[in-house]
């Protein structure tokens, strides 16, 4: 399965995601941000980093690049799209997932391992988990506090993917740190599955996100 890894100027988890996709058995391929048509991909990942230096607002400039047009075409074809960290911020900025990721409650950059609860397994990325399964992945961001004025709708439509379990390190609404669109095919998560894809790094829970995507 061909998976595009989008590279914006300032992406810095692109190589890590590429590595995790290979581990999961996929065929990753980099996609430069100037491309607007990559329908030959079976899925794409928008990796973390600081696209355009996070200048203005995280994800704001990446949201108006040609690559986003390309991603929208994939979404129309019902292919899976995963945004991680900065990628999640970009997906929410574009409006492909509901709600926003804004400045942390304590507005500092925060890098730490977290306990998470998988809230739905209807997405390609979480389908190998049990609902409410506890997993471990790290976060690393300054703008990751999730907010959505319409929490009820989110719950009713089963669009909450991940919640912090125990400590809520950024003050997210209800501890929500991963959401998806109505179809479940477009998914935005602040924690980094690629940093938790090998037990030597602290956990291999994250590998399931990529395996689930590849075997979809």
């Amino acid at each position, binding site marked *: 399965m061909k998976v595009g890894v989008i590279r914006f*100027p300032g992406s810095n*988890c692109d190589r890590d995601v590429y590595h995790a996709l290979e581990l999961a058995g996929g065929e990753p391929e980099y996609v430069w941000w100037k491309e607007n048509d990559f329908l030959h991909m079976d899925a794409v990942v928008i990796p973390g980093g*600081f696209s355009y230096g996070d200048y203005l607002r995280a994800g704001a400039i990446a949201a108006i690049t040609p690559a986003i047009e390309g991603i929208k075409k994939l979404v129309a074809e019902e292919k899976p799209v995963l945004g991680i960290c900065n990628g999640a911020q970009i997906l929410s900025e574009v409006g492909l997932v509901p709600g926003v990721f804004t400045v942390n409650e304590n507005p500092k*950059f925060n890098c730490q391992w977290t306990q998470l609860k998988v809230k739905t397994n209807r997405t390609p990325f979480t389908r190998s988990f049990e609902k409410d399964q506890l997993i471990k992945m790290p976060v690393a961001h300054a703008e990751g506090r999730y907010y959505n004025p319409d929490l009820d709708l989110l719950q009713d439509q089963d669009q909450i993917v991940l919640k912090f379990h125990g400590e809520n390190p950024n003050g997210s609404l209800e501890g929500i740190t991963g959401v998806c669109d109505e179809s479940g095919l477009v998914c935005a998560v602040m924690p980094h599955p690629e940093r938790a894809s090998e037990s030597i*790094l602290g956990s291999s829970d994250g590998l399931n996100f990529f395996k689930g995507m590849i075997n979809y």
Partner: protein
Amino acid sequence: MVLTESEEKYIKKELGREPNSLEYGMLDIMFSEHCSYKSSRPVLGLFPTEGEKIILGPGDDAGLVEITDELALAVGIESHNHPSAIEPYGGAGTGIGGILRDIISMGAMPIALLDSLRFGYLEDQKSRYLFEHVVKGISDYGNRVGIPTVGGEVEFDDNFQLNPLVNVMCAGLVAKKDIVRGIAPDVGDLFLLMGGRTGRDGIHGVTFASEELTTSSEIEDRPAVQIGDPFTKKMVLEASLEIMEQIPVSGVKDLGGGGLTCCISELAAKCDNGAQVDLGAIPLREEGMTPYEIMLSESQERMVFVIKPAQVEAVMEICDKYELPAAVIGEVTASGRMIVKDAEEIIADLPAHLLADPPVVERESREIEKNHGKIEVEHPPAEEALLKILSSQNIASKRWVYRQYDHEVQIRTIVKPGDDAAVLRVDEETAVALSVDCNSIHTKLDPYHGGAGSLAEALRNVVSMGATPICVVDCLNFGNPEKPEVFWQFSQCVQGMADLARKFNTPVISGNVSFYNETEGVTVNPSPVVGVVGVVEIPHIRTMEFKNEGDKIIVLGNTYPELDGSEYYREVHQLVHGDAPRIRMDEELKSAESILELLNSNLASAITAIHDSSAGGIGIALSEMALKSGIGAEVDLNKAPGTNTNEFETLLAESHGRYIITVTPDKVEEVLDKIKAPASVVGEVKGDKLVIKNLLDLDLDKLQRAYHGVIEEFMA
């Protein structure tokens, strides 16, 4: 201007005429202490710099050491003390930027940053300001560029209040066959400048770094501080690596201190060549810049590639892809002279060697007389002393700092911040351990033993991870070298480090000297910051936390009656006095070898945790092992190896050469038999309390409360 009268005389004699004002400016920066190492060079010659694994020693942008058959590690260390004192956020950020460029210049991908920071105590408002913004500067810069900050150290003491120390170490990975150097070997090659545009910032940055600071520096010297742009740096990093991957360039060098003048003259002088620079070709950030400003600017995020004319198009294409300004600005000549042209007019014409190799200065050295008087103190109960040290700013958890750094990006970090050293995998089988350390109190009390001791601590930290130390980098922060006492401290310190580096066969492959760390008459404690690189097979990696109840605890290495210079004296008695702990090179080596031999033997699986004893002594070391695991211990320190010591000294003295290891109970005798150093079982891992016979009995909860939240009490 910092040129001395005799230097001016020397220049006129070599040149046969008076330099013009541009030439004076160029010579002034190249003769600065920062660029020329004119005071330190003769002393630095004491360091061992060669070894079987050493590919490149000091002299280029970074040193290179072999870590596997295919891979080399480029390692460097930099200070950015003066800029950080004036403008902490930008100063710290550009410090990161500078060392990253040094690593990239070797063709290497930076994989790790470590910071060694020193400030005044946090009760002081100015110190909080500097601390907050230096850490934010490192965080914003390092995180954005995507290089993990995996380790470091922070010290607080009054003498750093006005003159903080900000040192950054960086390691980068490069295939041995892809190593690039900072040279311009072939006449006719072109200099291609790429990256950030040249602006008016950082002019005379190096000369300002070669003088003492004053209270007015914050206003007067701000223009000498460079402005960093991590986003452009990230583009420069990606583009540079792509260029070097695709095009066999002749040489690469970054523009740091001294700007274009330093970069081009050093490239040429290294190969006894000359250079011609065309001023009009340089992409500028602002209009109306004078030749003086252009040649001296220290604008950030710039690199120079030395390439063949036929390679220009391919390099430009890559720069275009990353939307980076780039231009051919000159060429390598056979003249041996550095010539700057403005249109057709020659506006500077100097021998490249005159710029790149200023004469050394013989500094006077005078021993500081020691005060040997003993001060009698009354020891408080051990419990009270230990809790006070554990909750001191110097020993307490630095989580507030390292959580602001992305320490996971690049998915190499096997052992995360908070242990003795960071451990990063480089391939399927191999990892490197990196540590950066300094004991400024020991060095103040005795520069020889303190210098060697700082290295010893870094070596122990690397050995504690199970890694074999292979090389050293150093950043030597001292006061004004024109003062004979300061120069004596410096020379003694280097001698101590050199002796121990030789003993361990760990050559010093790169380094930096920062003099003039004096502000308003206060000289910082001499601070030899030492980075050590170790190599470890992944299965040999060990961490400090207790693993299993029932494991036996062994103390390895002798304790001596050496409470002087300890954290105990500093934190409990506010006393910095007496003799530093002595470095006993044979014992230090024996302890380290014993640990590494155990891990390479059939007893390896019996060794469950390793931690060294350094600042705070065995008391703090045991506390940390318990705190990180949530498991307690019962210990009798009377059983620990020691010479003329009582239990209290064994708990808190900072004698070198000591480790604590835990061993599965079934293998204790075999392990003890194998250890060449003095060693004995002192207790076992057990329960949820730290109990040290006759001295203390503390719930882990109480230790946790002391150790965590200390920095956070002062910082948001």
